[in-house]
């Protein structure tokens, strides 16, 4: 009996089904936890308490929110393009989820490894923008539309920076496969040689996920809630989940591209090989968690950009910097060869 179950598990694992289920479930479970953590951390940073009501220290707040959203009425505003209005949250959530299929969490734990993995992630995440734009447009609301327009412009601009900042690690690794890139960082992470790239990626990833200080598409003070102002109930929750899934996704990407993926730190020193005793997946998630914490940290610290500042930063600072980084990396690699 046990053997049969084990066989079954092995079969499912081999055919990625179980991995998909685990990744999917974990991502979804991250959302309530992350929302709680976010409110708690930012609260503490701003000398507040954060949620305190549901459960001890409000630990069940995320679940309560989820239940609330689940039970809420799904409102379709009058004058909305109903089909697109319904489609938009799905279009937003699905890419965020399927992009996880190429992230290697450990050397034994990834759904698939393809030779264009990085491009795949970029391609899929660029589709997520449609959810936002269409949501804003189909709501028949000026706030939503403005939020969507901002989002579209922002994503187009920062996608370039993200793509270019990833070119450095790619050049160093010489492969587009995620597993390959991670393996290339077994000793030296790309963080140090690609510190400029990491900085650009970090900034662009904040912008790409519409997080503070680049949360202009949903700037509460100006646009009420931006593109999802007309959404309620589970449709709103879809956007919410998509946003957090995207955060986890870009953090995972950063981990893989710059922070050595599942590799423990300081492996250039013999002494530090002890760290390999800790399973790689913990390293991976530790790094992701730190990056996610950075998201919150930044949000609690910096005020929102103005729109022209955002555009100027993207086009006049980050992209030239990224191009320069590629140039320098290329020259150095050529010299080292």
């Amino acid at each position: 009996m046990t053997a049969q179950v084990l066989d079954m598990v092995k079969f499912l694992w081999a055919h990625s089904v179980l991995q998909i289920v685990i990744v999917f479930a974990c991502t979804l479970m991250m959302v309530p936890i992350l929302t709680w953590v976010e409110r708690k951390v930012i609260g503490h940073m701003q000398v507040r308490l954060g949620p305190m009501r549901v459960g001890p220290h409000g630990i069940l707040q995320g679940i309560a929110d989820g239940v609330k959203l689940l039970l809420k009425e799904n409102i379709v505003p009058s004058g909305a393009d109903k089909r697109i209005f319904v489609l938009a949250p799905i279009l937003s959530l699905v890419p965020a989820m399927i992009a996880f299929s190429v992230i290697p969490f450990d050397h034994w734990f990834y759904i698939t490894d393809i030779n264009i993995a990085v491009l795949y992630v970029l391609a899929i995440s660029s589709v997520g923008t449609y959810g936002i734009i269409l949501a804003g447009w189909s709501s028949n609301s000026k706030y939503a539309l403005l939020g969507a327009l901002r989002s579209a412009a922002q994503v187009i601009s920062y996608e370039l920076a993200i793509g270019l900042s990833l070119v450095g690690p790619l050049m160093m690794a010489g492969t587009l496969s995620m597993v390959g890139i991670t393996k290339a960082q077994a000793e030296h992470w790309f963080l140090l040689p690609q510190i400029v790239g990491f900085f650009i990626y970090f900034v662009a990833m904040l912008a790409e996920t519409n997080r503070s200080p680049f949360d202009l598409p949903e700037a509460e003070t100006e646009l009420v809630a931006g593109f999802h102002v007309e959404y309620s109930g589970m449709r709103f929750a879809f956007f919410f989940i998509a946003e957090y899934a995207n955060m986890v996704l870009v953090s995972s990407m950063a981990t893989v591209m710059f922070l050595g993926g599942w590799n423990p730190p300081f492996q250039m020193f013999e002494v530090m090989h002890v760290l390999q005793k800790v399973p790689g997946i913990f390293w991976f998630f530790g790094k992701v968690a730190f990056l996610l914490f950075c998201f919150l940290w930044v949000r609690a610290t910096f005020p929102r950009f103005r729109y022209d500042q955002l555009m100027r930063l993207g086009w006049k600072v980050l992209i030239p910097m990224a191009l320069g980084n590629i140039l320098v990396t290329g020259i150095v690699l050529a010299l080292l060869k």
Partner: protein
Amino acid sequence: MFGTLFFYYLFFMILASAVMMVTRKHVVHSVLYMLLMFFHIAGLYILLEAEFLAAIQLIVYAGAILVLYLFVIMLVNIKRVQTLREQLFGHLPFALVSAGLLCAGVVTVLARETLLKKPPEVVARVSTLSNPEALGQVLYTQYLFPFEVASLILLVALVGAVLIASRKI
């Protein structure tokens, strides 16, 4: 077998979404159908073992060009777009005749090709490189000059677009 089925699925979906795209009254709906079509074309490229192109198809077409379309559609007055009068049938005969002529030409060529000549043999793959690597090899050696020209085109387009859109003409 799976590949065949997949091909027919893609075949049908690409054509269907293309037709839908052309016939939609509302531009945003057209854009959505076009997005659908791009996805399936990307699938087709994967079927044709051009993974890199599949990704680029999504990144460039879906992620950049189509978003730009949507962006501009939203910039112009949508109500006006919706009420745009279209003389659909005024151009229909001309369109059908010219499309039909072209179609006939291609079909005759294809028919002759398939009937008279043997289909081209699939030449055995020599290279062990993966598709992006192989493409890179070709692109940066054989096609280096066109590549540079393409970058120049992009630069000119960039400057031109900014200039046209920003200045009051």
